[in-house]
Every structure is written in C-alpha cells, then in structure tokens.
C-alpha cells in the first residue's frame, strides 16, 4: 500500500499532514453546531429511524449512492460520524486537488485553500440531508482521484491500470450523484489553466496529457448510461436530459448563467459576499493574464478561463430540469471555481498576488464561517418550530374522539409549512430550497413525520385516500369548512381517514383533487 501510494506520489509529507489536520479541525469548527445538534432534512425521516439499503437510491438511478453508508456505518445515519467522515473525505479531496492543480505548496496555502473551499455555505447543502452527506462528500474525493490518476496516464508504464482506476472513480461518482460531472470539468479546466500558465504547455502537449482524462470520463459516462438501462429507474424529473438538437441553443443560455453566478445572491451568500468572491476571482484572472507572456498566450488563457467558468453550468446545460443557482449542484461547480481562483492567486509568482490570496482567503473563511453559523442557527430555529407544530398536530389527533391507536388510518397532508425563512432577514436574488426554504414537514413525508415521535403506528401506508373515503360529509367539510393550521378545522378525522391542512395552497390543491375524485365517482 505504501509502495503504491509512493509510486502515485500520494504519500503525504509533513506539510500535507499538517495542512490536512489543521484544515479538518477548522472545517469541523465551522460546522460544529450542526455536528452536535443532529438535525436532519425532510428526506431523512424514515432513513434515520431505520436503515439505508443498497437499493434505496435505485428509483432515481443513483445505484452507488448508499454503498459508502453500507460499508462504513452498516446503513445507519449516525450522529457525529456522519459529519466527521464527510469532512474527512472532503479534506482529502481538497488536498488531492491542491496536488492535482499543483498549487504552490506550504502549510499556510494548503490550509487556507482547503478550509476556504470546505467552509463555503455550498457545503451546507450537503448537511441538510443526512442520508447522503457521507456519499456526496466522498464523491468529491473520488472525482478528484479519477482526475489525478488520469493525469498520470500519459507518463506512466501501467496505462491501463491507471485508466481502469480512474474510470471506476468517475463511474462510482456518476452513479451516486450525476451533477458531479461539473467537478470533473471545472477541475480539468483548472488543470489546463495551471499547465498552460505555469508549465508553458501548448495545445498539443495539453491534448497529449489530458486526452486520457476525457476518454476516461466518456467511458465512465457511457457505462453509467448503460447501467441506468439495466437498473431501470422510475421516470423521475432529475433524470431527463436535453436532446442533442436543443443543446446549441442552450449553450448561450448556460454561458450567461455561468457568468451571472458571480453576482446572483442566494441565501447566506448575499451581494456583499458575492462581490468579495468576485473581486478575488477578478484578481486571480488579472494576475494570470499579466503573468502570461505574449498576446497569443493571453488569448489562449482567456479562452481556457472562460471555458472553465462555463463548465460550472454543465449540468444545467445537459439536463432538462432547472438546476441553475441550486446550491448542492453549485457545490460541484461554482465552489470549485472559486477554489481554483484562490489556488491561482496562491500560485502566481508575484508576491502581491500571494498576499492578496492570504488576505482574501482569511477574510472569506471568516465570512464563510459566520454565514454557516447564521444558517445553522436559522435551521435549528426552523427545525424546532416545525417540529413543535408537528407535536401540536399530533396532540390534536390523539385527543380526537374518533382516534384510536389500534386502528390504521389512510392519511393525507394538504400543503406544508416551511419556517426557516421566518428567521432569515437577508436579501437574495434567487432562493435556494436546501439552504433555506425547503420545509421539514414536507407534504410527501406526512406519514413518516406524524409517526416519528408517536407512541403508536396508526397510519396505513399501503393505500392513499380512496374515492370511497370522500363521502358527502368529507367533501362538504373540505369545500366549505376546512381552514389551514392552526384553525380547529385544519384537522379532519373519521373512522378511516386523517387529513391535516397546513396551508391555503395545500387546501386549494386538495379541493381540486377532491373535485376530480368526486367527478370520478359514478
């Protein structure tokens, strides 16, 4: 093992070890409140109580998603270890990325580079759902490892072994969360810039070195698509890809999106923060262009930089659903782009740029941490507030004269309540569901949520509401008397069904469904 690592130049030296340990501690400090408070998102309710199975992600084509959980925690979502393992993988990934890009090496530069990336509020988006935290942070390590191995192929003796290793890395990550493809290309773009700028490599040499990377990614992508044919996932929204004919038109749109990301404020990354990061990026670009010799090289470099920026929107380019300005997807793209610019600043030979890198990264790490703690404080308040409503709803159910814990009721939750935004006072251009607005009391998790703390199992999960449940009395109640929570008429219970109305939109939607159900009754 030691020999293998040595041959791959992966054996960490003292600087590496020091930087990794310090970064890991700083990252954990930035998210300590989350680690110690064991909060979870709306997808986690059932999994946190039971276990994750290998097959749990198959329905949406994520066939490798839960392999790490089965291997590391026997499929359990455990407090503390979930975050610790995730951050350990992320730290390793960023250390490897620093090596891959060949960022100027020192304890300070590596530490600031790793910590800056990991503390960005984009990382929070992977903490919201605890059932994928470990996997989705591990994918970053595998993605960078795949790139690192691919970069070694051109000069290595055992080309096939390295290619197979890289393909496995890419394939596993794509099978776990396909938008990780952004990472492949942002990091590859970054590598091309670093090579062109600091190693004075021309197009030909770059192609000779990195053609294997492209080849490995393509093979992994083909294998991924073939596996999807075998797995046959459900027809879910997040697997629909654009047709080839639509791509040219979408190119310009995504180019605009990619560049607008520098200015579009999202929750916990408001205008001021975005501007600061944009300044850091601009400083890196100016520095690189100044350092590049000759107009030809400057133009070539500008082209590579533009290409790298565009790759942050690659997923948006390839798929039908709108994925722009979504924090968890931007984690695999924009966050890496910012890290790339920081790495570039650190690596420029001119001292002022290095100093700028230190100042920017130190400032941004503090800003990141403050934003993370703001977010975690808001998450905690939202979590507590929403679960208090759940307690109150359950108390009403329990005291209802028609409720018996020995029976099984068909359950429906009309609408949901999201309370995290109540505690947030920042301004943003685009909302982000994972960072702020997604409710814990999600409409489709009603049954799991209402039974989570209840002493009994009283919900019949085998059947939804049936047409025969909509008696004239039920129909009349919801058409005329029902009101959203906390009105007394927000809860309806009879001997067969329990219906909770959380908001007006949910009630309107439910009324619409009732009319449809009613019209289907002969």
């Amino acid at each position: 093992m030691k020999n293998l690592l040595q041959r791959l130049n992966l054996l960490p030296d003292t600087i590496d070890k020091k930087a990794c340990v310090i970064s890991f501690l700083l990252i954990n400090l930035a998210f300590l409140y989350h680690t110690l408070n064991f909060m979870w998102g709306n997808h986690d309710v059932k999994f946190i109580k039971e276990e994750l199975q290998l097959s749990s992600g198959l329905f949406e084509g994520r066939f490798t998603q839960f392999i790490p959980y089965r291997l590391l925690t026997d499929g359990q979502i455990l407090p503390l270890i979930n975050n610790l393992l995730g951050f350990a993988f992320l730290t390793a990934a960023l250390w490897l990325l620093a090596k891959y890009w060949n960022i100027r090496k020192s304890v300070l530069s590596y530490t600031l580079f790793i910590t800056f990336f990991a503390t960005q509020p984009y990382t929070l988006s992977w903490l919201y759902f605890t059932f994928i935290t470990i996997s989705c942070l591990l994918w970053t390590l595998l993605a960078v490892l795949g790139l690192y191995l691919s970069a070694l192929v051109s000069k290595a003796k055992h080309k096939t072994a390295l290619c197979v290793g890289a393909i496995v890395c890419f394939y596993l990550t794509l099978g776990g969360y396909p938008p990780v493809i952004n990472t492949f290309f942002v990091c590859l773009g970054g590598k091309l810039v670093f090579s062109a700028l600091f190693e004075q490599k021309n197009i030909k040499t770059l192609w000779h070195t990195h053609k294997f990377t492209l080849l490995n990614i393509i093979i992994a992508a083909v294998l991924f698509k073939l596996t999807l044919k075998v797995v046959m996932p459900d027809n879910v929204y997040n697997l629909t890809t654009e047709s080839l004919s639509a791509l040219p038109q979408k190119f310009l749109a995504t180019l605009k999106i990619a560049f607008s990301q520098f200015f579009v404020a999202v929750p916990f990354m408001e205008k001021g923060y975005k501007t600061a990061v944009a300044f850091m990026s601009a400083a890196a670009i100016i520095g690189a262009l100044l350092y590049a010799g000759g107009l030809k090289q400057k133009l070539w470099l500008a082209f590579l930089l533009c290409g790298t920026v565009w790759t942050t929107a690659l997923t948006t380019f390839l798929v039908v659903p709108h994925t722009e300005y979504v924090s968890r997807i931007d984690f695999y793209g924009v966050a890496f782009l910012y890290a790339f610019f920081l790495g570039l600043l650190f690596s420029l030979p001119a001292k002022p740029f290095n100093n700028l890198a230190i100042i920017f990264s130190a400032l941004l790490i503090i800003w990141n941490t403050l934003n993370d703690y703001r977010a975690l404080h808001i998450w905690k308040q939202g979590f507590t507030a929403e679960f208090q409503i759940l307690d109150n709803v359950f108390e009403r159910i329990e005291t209802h004269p028609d409720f018996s814990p020995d029976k099984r009721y068909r359950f429906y939750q009309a609408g949901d309540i999201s309370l995290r935004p109540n505690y947030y006072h920042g301004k943003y251009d685009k909302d982000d569901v994972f960072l702020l607005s997604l409710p814990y009391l999600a409409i489709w998790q009603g049954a799991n949520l209402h039974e989570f703390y209840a002493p009994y199992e009283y919900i019949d999960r085998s059947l939804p509401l049936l047409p025969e449940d909509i008696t004239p009395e039920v129909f009349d109640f919801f058409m005329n008397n029902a009101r959203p929570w906390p009105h007394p008429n927000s809860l309806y219970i009879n001997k067969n069904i329990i219906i909770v109305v959380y908001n007006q939109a949910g009630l309107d939607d439910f009324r619409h469904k009732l009319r449809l159900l009613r019209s289907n009754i002969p």
Partner: protein
Amino acid sequence: MSALLKKITSRKEDAPILISVIIALCLAFSPLLFNFIWGNHDWLPLINDNRLSHGLIEGRFSQYLLQNIFLMGKILPLANILLGFFFYTLALYLLCRYYYGFQASRLVTALFLCSMATLPFMVEILYFHFITFSLLSWPLIVVLALLCCRRASTSHPFIFTMAGTLLLLFALGGYPPVVNLFVTAAACRLIGEYCLENKPFKTVCKSAVPYLISLFLALLLLVGIFAWLQENHRMLSLYNSQASTLMELIKKLPQTLAISLQSFIIPQSFLPLPLKVATSIAFLLFSGLFLFRSTSISDLFLRILMILLLLLAVKFSAWLVNETSDSAFAAVDPAAFMIRADFYGFPALLLFCLIYLHRRNQGLKNIALLLAVCLLSVGIKNDLAFAKTHLFGFSAENKLLERLISRIQEHPSYQTPQTYTIIQAGELPLRRKYYTPAPHEKLGYYTLNAPYTRHWIAFEYYNFYAPEVFIRGGTSIRPENITPAMATFLTEKIGVWPVANSLYVDDNYVIIALTPEGKELLTGQFRLLTPPPTTE
C-alpha cells in the same frame, strides 16, 4: 503508591495514549456529552443531588463517595461523564501498562486501549446519570487493588494484601459486579505469568494467594456489611444483593460457563454479530495457542482449567448472585446477560487476548492489530447508534409526558393548588422504535427497553417541569379514598390512552391507563381491593 505515581508521572511520553483514549471516548459518546439526557432513575437525583447515604437502600455504601468528593454529589452535564471517562481511561492504562506489563509502541497501545474503551459494554452505564461517574470510576479502584495484590507477592505481603482488600471492598460497596474485573484481570495476569513469563506453576500459585485472600476477605466483609445494614433497617433485601449458597454455586457452575460462552456468540443490543465474532476470534486464538503450547497431558489439563476459570471470571457476579430471588424486573434482564456487569469483565479479558497475540509472531501481531481496528470501528458505530436511540427515545417519551400533563391539567376536575397521588397504569418505552434489531438478538433492558418514565416513580417526572408540585409520592389507592365515581371509572368506564376516559381525576387521585396491560393489571388489583359483596 507514591512510587507508582512517580513511575506514571515520569512516563510523560505515554500522555498521547491517555489523550487518544479520552478523545476516542468523547467521540463515541459525544451526543450524550453535549445533550443532557438521563435515565429513569435520574429525575430526582438531578434536582436533589446524590447524598452519601442514598445508595444504602440496596447496600451500596460507597456508591456516591467519589461523586461527593469530586462533584459535590451533583450530576453535572458534561463533567459527570467526562470525569468518568478520565478515571476509566486511567484504569485501562494502568491495567495495560503496569498490571499486564504490556510494552509496545504508543500507537499500538493507544489502538488497543481505544478499542477496549469504546466497546459498547459501556452504553448501559451511560444510561443512568446518577451512577455514571461512580460506575466508571470503580475500574480504577479495582486496578489499584490488583496492583496492590501483585505487589504483595514480592514485598510487604500483609500491608499490600490488606490495601488490596480495602480497595476492592470500596469498589464492591459501590457496585458488586466490579468483582468481575478483579477476578478476570487477576486470572489473566496469572495466566500471563504462567505462559508468557514461563514461571513454574507453584510460583504462579504463590502469586495467586494475595488475590484470593483479598477477594475472600472483601466478599466476606461485604456480606457482613449487608447483614448489618439490613439489621439496622438501612438496606432492603433486594433481588440484586442475594448471594448463592455453596451448593447453589456448585450447581450453577456449568450453567454459568454456558452463559459465558453464549455471551461470546449471541448478539445483543448494540453488541452486534460482527463485534461478537471479533471477540470470539480473539478469545479462540488465545485459547487455541495457549492449549497448543502445553508440554504434557497434565499441563494441557491445567491449561484447560485456566481457560474455564477465565470463562467463569467474566461472569463471576452472575455466578455469585442468587437467581431464585429474581423479581419480575430481574427476569426481564437476568444478571447473566446484563452488559453493565459485562463491562467489568470482557474488556479486561479481550485486552489480555490482544496483548497475548501481539507478543507472538508477526502474523499474530497483525491479527491482533486488525482485531483492535475492527473492535474500535464497530464499537464507535454502536456507541453512536445507542446515543441516537437514547436521544430519540428520550424526546419521544418526554413529548408523551407533556401531553399527559396537559391532559391532566385540562381535566374539569383538576384543581390548583392541589396535590394528587398519581396511578399510572402501564409504561410506554419508545426507544425500540428507533432501532432495528438483528435476528436472534438478545434485547437489552437498560440499553433499549427500559422506559424513561417508570410507573412507580411517577411523581418524580410529573413534577419535574411543573411550576409547582402537583403530584405527591405514593402509587397506591387507599381503600378509604375510593369513591363511587372512582369505582365506576375503574370497573366500567376505564379506557386506554389516548381515549378521553383513560384519565380519571378527583380530589385525591389522578388515574391514567396508559397501556392495555397496565389497565388490566390496575383493574384486576382494584377488584381484589374491593371484592364484590357475597350473598349468603
């Protein structure tokens, strides 16, 4: 003692070992360190502290001594567990380095100790806050007793044997099953002298004398103290303080050995099959090698006896205790499989097995290291899984308690200021909801099944968050207080929670039928209390 202290303080290079063990323990149990949750006996001690005399009722005369010395008898968040971890870490370190005499690199020692410290045998000890600190500190006292007995065979035999006896008695007075640690570690040490230090059997027997004297004297004194306390009405004759007679001990020997073997195989809550397999491999490899190295038939016979002695030692307290006095409570969780008692036997035995393997060739060394890594990873995972069920179960039962209180206080007959005797019929333990047991797993009582709200101490938790005391002590209905309304409720109207007529409130009593079983028991007892008039 001062020489030992000097020796320890002079080994500053071992500080990282102690620090890594404490860090490993803190990581494995961090949710319990940073979330102040407690078990069903803790409600009152949390408010009133642990006084020195509080343990006397079950003969535990020294139970709160250390807690009063170090924490003023208070149950403090973080400090309670952290201090316990420190004492336990020190105990393991002394056991490993000075008692078993294990000399290896810091990394290996730290790995072995971390893997032992984080074994999930500890989870049951962390369930009750009021005894966490004392239960975690007894190993240190016992290890000091062992070190004294070891020293007795070389110098000042009388002084060191007496010191060992007193220390052991002090620990036994806090929690008698700590005897497992004394017997197991002593047996391991003596076996080590025989097989690793190649001492003649006679010398080993000579070394055993101080241990035997200490054990015998300490147990004798303990029984004497129990008798004295009972005679003075300080101690109740409870299920957990009854010893077996000599005949019973002989009769129970095969059964205890069988239970001991089963403990290596049968998965228990938070002690899953992989952990049992790893412990079995460690023990089997040690036993196999130990037997393989026998030089003659008589030596083989002797070695077999030694292994049987080890098996008996890890279940020594279960062997001593009288099972005939089992109450319904003890029957749910017989002492034989109580992991709180195993906490004192198994880690010491496993540590010895790992040390034994590590002292052999490179292959066995690697196996020992691999086993330690496996135990560490499975241990931490299951410690955290326990913490998770503890957190969720505690929340779920407290939410139920809040609903019960609000229902009582909304009842039309409820008046303030007024105090009531509460009769809670049944209990609803909810921790199991958050745990998926493995097939054929032996469910633990305190690890998973015990409710946070025991019906017989209802006044403790109903008053816990109340602005004023509204429930008084006592859990029985006095015949003179039975009203026709209560009789009608208990014989005709009573339903099971959460229906409206699961609750009855009058001027004196609050009656809640929480479960169907509880309701049946209560109505059955009530019928006995008020037999129907006989027609002559």
